[in-house]
């Protein structure tokens, strides 16, 4: 009955898993009335009954997702993928669930490591390593730096509760459902554009597979999209992937790359302008130097 309403290729199991995940997230999110003393540590999750129910639901959701998904092929590859995907999902959930901002940042770093692992398993080496260099290595270290300086004693009240836990969880669940059912089509035979290439397939496949024409409106999405195009190509793994990515970026997506660079430059100049104005005001006030 319900299955008839769903888009083709979606199993009730997948929907149930996503629903369970949403409920789990809602229960786990720090709420104003929840157990007050929860710290950021892992032990904090197990405080209170709602937390326990949330964890059980979350585990059920993970199991459902793992069962509903398509298989990759080789046993080792499958196990590696499940492991890094698990790290990414648990890390991502823990990022929003923990109350301590420092722990949130650490969990986020772990989630990024998981995402990088997923990309590495799927053969997108450059993107995987670049994720770590850019996000975990630079941006998140800056976050941590500021958080540590700004968090002297305890946590601020706005860190302890989540503003709209129900709406947030539902929004996340709907987004996940839309993505998995429309793009991934996890359990059906995927269309040619969306096959996840296993290494063996890529080596054996005929080079005549149809190529996805992926034009991207957003600037930030350009590198990702380029990689998706590259990954869908059957000879992506045999040729030098970095050179291909570079050609793609500075050939077809040159305008997007330049626009992103210009945007960053403007932001940089803006930051310098703001800082120097603040300094001027400060020195004028003090009358020193």
């Amino acid at each position, binding site marked *: 009955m319900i299955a008839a309403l769903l888009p083709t290729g979606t199993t009730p199991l997948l929907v149930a898993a996503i629903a369970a995940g949403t409920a789990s997230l809602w229960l786990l999110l720090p709420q104003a009335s929840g157990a007050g003393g929860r710290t950021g*540590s*892992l032990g904090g999750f197990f405080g209170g009954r709602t937390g326990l129910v949330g964890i059980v639901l979350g585990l059920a959701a993970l199991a459902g997702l793992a069962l509903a998904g398509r298989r990759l092929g*080789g*046993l*080792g590859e499958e196990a590696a993928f499940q492991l890094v995907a698990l790290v990414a999902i648990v890390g991502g959930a823990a990022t929003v669930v923990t109350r301590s901002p*420092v722990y949130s940042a*650490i969990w986020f*770093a772990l989630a990024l490591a998981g995402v990088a692992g997923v990309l590495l398993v799927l053969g997108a*080496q*450059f993107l995987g*390593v*670049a994720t*770590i*260099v850019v996000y*975990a*290595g*630079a941006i998140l*270290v*800056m976050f*941590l*730096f500021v958080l*540590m*300086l*700004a968090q*002297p004693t305890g946590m601020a009240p706005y860190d302890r509760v989540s503003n709209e836990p129900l709406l947030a969880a539902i929004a996340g669940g709907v987004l996940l459902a839309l993505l998995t059912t429309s793009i991934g089509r996890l359990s059906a035979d995927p269309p040619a554009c969306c096959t996840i290439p296993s290494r063996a397939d890529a080596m054996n496949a005929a080079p005549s597979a149809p190529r996805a024409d992926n034009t991207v409106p957003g600037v930030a999405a350009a590198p990702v999209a380029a990689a998706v195009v590259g990954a869908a190509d059957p000879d992506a793994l045999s040729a*030098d*992937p*970095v050179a291909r990515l570079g050609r793609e970026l500075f050939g077809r997506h040159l305008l997007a790359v330049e626009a992103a660079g210009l945007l960053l430059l403007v932001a940089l100049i803006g930051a310098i302008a703001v800082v120097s104005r603040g300094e001027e005001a400060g020195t004028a*006030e*003090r009358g*020193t*130097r």
Partner: protein
Amino acid sequence: MNAVLPSPTTIAALVKIGLLVGGLMTAAAYLVLLERWIAAWVQDRKGPNRVGIPLTKIKLFGLGQPLADGLKIILKEDFTPSHVDRVLYNAAPLLILAASLAIFAAIPFGSVLPPLGIPGLPDPVPFLVAPGLDVGVLWVFALSSIAVYGVLLGGWASNNKYGFLGGVRSSAQLVAYEIPLGLGLLGVVLAAGSLKLDRIMEAQAESGVWYAFAQPLGFIVFLVASFAEAARLPFDLPEAEQELVGGYHTEYSGIRLLLFLVAEFLHMITAAFLIVIMFLGGWHLWGITGSGQEVTWIGALLRFGVLSAKILGVIVFFMLVRWSWPRFRFDQLMNLAWKVMLPLGLANLVTVAVVEEYRPWLAERLGPAGAGWVALGLPWGMFFIGWLMAGLLTPSGTDNRPIRTHGPLDAEHALDTDLVEA
């Protein structure tokens, strides 16, 4: 592929990992001894020379010292202060050591073995744990930026002023010097046309011109930045014994402290590996090692020996610099990174890009030899111009009088920010 039995490739990778981890740990232990010998030699004293074989009177020049040191530090009381954040306090040393060791998955420690003839194993066997990784340079870069977490978290979780200051200093320093490090690295990647470290060594062996000669500016920038990344003197602000007790590992003792110290030594070894591989020709030495993938057993061992000797040379250089330069002040450190090294790195990158772009064009006009000389001359010209500019235009920052960062009215505010971590 058989799913139950590991494939020959997997076994080969495991053997390489075993050799590498064992070799690195032993090397780290004996490099500590070497460091103490060199320190003693610089300061005109004898240094550790007594520990030999236990229960005998044989001294062996003090070669038993690392074993004794290791035993002592492992048997020390493993004390955890009550005010620390326990989870992160325990995780930080593990994280930093794991990241420092994982770097070596992409670092070649020799050239190739001659064909072994084992079925299922691709010939020739490279001296590299993960030969399939196409982005070796980036892998090294990514994991060395992960190592920052160990320092930062160790400092924060200790809940100690000195530890925290060390952690904050170190994160600022490492993030700042990652940029010149990357710029120096990009020049090499551009010239070699590959992100694989073994390919970079081969490119130098084929042309016979090490990148230290072809890109002097890039070499200097990379050398300075790797000193800073390894937090060695004159860039050892994260620890700064005289100011911060021990910096980020002030509150650590016993085996956890040992993990931090080993990771630090591994950073220095990594830096030496990278300097040798990317700028000093790797396993190549003119007239001795040849080039290409065809090697005999003697050739393979010779290349391994040449690479090891070069790395040892760079490490000795690291240790001599330690006793030759005073530590930077923090503003000098940042000035050097942003106002000297960053522009020099950019200048090097542009020069290399121009040279590589016009090399075929030059070869057509001047012949390969002439093009080679121009390709060498242009970077050296840029090197001297850059040196001159750096000397003339940058703030010298050698003034050692105390600088006022806060006006009198700011005193209260300054007090607040200073007490933030208390």
